[in-house]
């Protein structure tokens, strides 16, 4: 999830964070958001073997950790073209034309099949399906590829140093279960089960 240089928003990590992001955007404006998000990032070198991040279609990878007080352990939130230095950082932006949330339903060797919910249209159910080439994933994501993994996919324009190009980004969620998550679910399940009467 990021807003850069007063331009628009790219992917993803979770609904509460997205709501927070949108609230902040309204409150402090895109320029300030861009400054905050870009104030602390680390860039993976495009030539680095097994660098985190991956792409489908054009684009080079930059890792941007979540900032602005959002709690997440996702290490990779969006991928952008080659970052060419601090003087141009605010000129990189991504304008999504189309976004989906998807999940993996089958891993077929060279490809994996996904179900897609059209976020741009506001769809509530996964009505579409496609295949992605497994080779488009970096090594780390390939190893983690399994049925049920959730990702955000965005197609849009990327602006960088006066260059505009169409890109397609797939970003897998890397949230992890915590002990608190699991204990809380177990407790809620127990309480709910106790409330149901059977005849």
């Amino acid at each position, binding site marked *: 999830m990021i807003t850069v240089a007063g331009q628009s928003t790219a992917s993803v990590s979770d609904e509460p964070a997205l709501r927070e992001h949108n609230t902040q955007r309204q409150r402090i404006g895109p320029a300030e958001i861009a400054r905050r998000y870009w104030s602390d990032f680390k860039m993976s070198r495009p030539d680095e073997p097994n660098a985190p991040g991956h792409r489908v279609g054009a684009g080079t990878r930059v890792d941007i950790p979540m900032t602005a007080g959002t709690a997440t352990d996702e290490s990779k939130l969006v991928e952008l073209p080659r970052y060419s230095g601090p003087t141009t950082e605010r000129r990189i932006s991504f304008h999504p034309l189309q976004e989906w949330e998807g999940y993996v339903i089958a891993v077929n060797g060279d490809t994996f099949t996904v179900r897609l919910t059209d976020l741009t249209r506001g769809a509530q159910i996964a009505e579409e399906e*496609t295949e992605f*080439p497994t080779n488009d994933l970096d090594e780390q994501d390939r190893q983690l590829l399994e049925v049920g993994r959730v990702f955000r996919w965005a197609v849009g324009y990327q602006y960088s140093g006066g260059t505009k190009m169409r*890109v397609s980004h797939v970003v897998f969620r890397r949230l992890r*279960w915590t*002990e608190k998550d699991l204990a809380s679910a*177990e407790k809620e*399940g127990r309480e709910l089960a106790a409330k*149901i009467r*059977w005849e």
Partner: protein
Amino acid sequence: MRPRIDQVEVTLIGPGYGESAVLHLGNDNWVVIDSCIDSQTGQPAAISYLEQIAVDPATAVKLVVATHWHDDHIGGMGALLSRCAQAKFCCSSALGRREFLGYVRRFQPGAMIAGGSGVREIDQVTKLLAKQLKAAVAASANKRVYRLPARESGHGQECEVWALSPSDAQYEKFLFEIGSLVLEPGELKRRAVAQRPNHLSVVTWVQVGDLALLLGADLEETRDAGTGWSVIVTSAERPQGKAAVFKVAHHGSANAHSDAVWQMMLVEEPFAVLTPWSRAGGLPTAADARRIDELTPNAYSTARLRPSRGRTRSAAVEKTLRDAGIRIRRAEPPTGVVRLRNVGARDPHTWNVELLRQACHLSMVHAA
């Protein structure tokens, strides 16, 4: 147009995404088995259908059955149950076990991950039941779950709905499966993954006088005599007789086929209806469709299994997809409807078949 009070109706709707069977037992008493979302209205398909024929779901639906928790059978179940205010809800009591509900709760919106495999619907339904303090009907093998007395049925015949499964062994297997879905702290979050085979599927038998209907849910045949179809066929405790209408189990798959069911539980050349399922090459396969067509000339599908293109998007998006070699298709064919209505009290064994929207004879399910 709604059926007359003395007409029995079996309407199968799907896929859009999933399937739903809507049954008229008589005198505006309706039963809904499973839920799916209508691809045209975005609403639970059973609600859309009932409203379309001027039936009020709030008063007319007396029983809602969830055969199992897979998302192609339970889409919109929470909304369906809220709308059917007078309906009893029936499912296997295994779905109300704390182990399963604990599993379900892990995938709720607060957990910041997409739900799946019906877990969100199960969560909505159980919360609704807890809130309304309404007792749920536990489905298990050879148990009558609903009865409509003859004096209220509109055709003078008593109506009964029976669950024929899950058996004790199926129940135990399901709990074992849930137990094996243990998640450890630090594991990557993912969407809930449905387990196969569908041990918990609730097969339903509907008896209206001497007329019987068999709704096969997603029950698959197994090699274990205590589970699958074998245990149902051999049971002496189930209602005996032969059904005139069969909702073919598990989209007509070979795994769900049992010769014994066709020989011992169905009349000759019954009406066989199914919804197709497009994942993993699609069901029914061409061989499945041929097998069923050879067993009865009266086989129908709610839709054809032809790949259809996804939505058209802006030129820039379409070009990006083309450049990347990505083709998006609809996950499921559009929703169709097969409606069977009998002639009524004077001739309950004669049926009229209507194929609405995408529905077709089963022999055409793979036709372009």
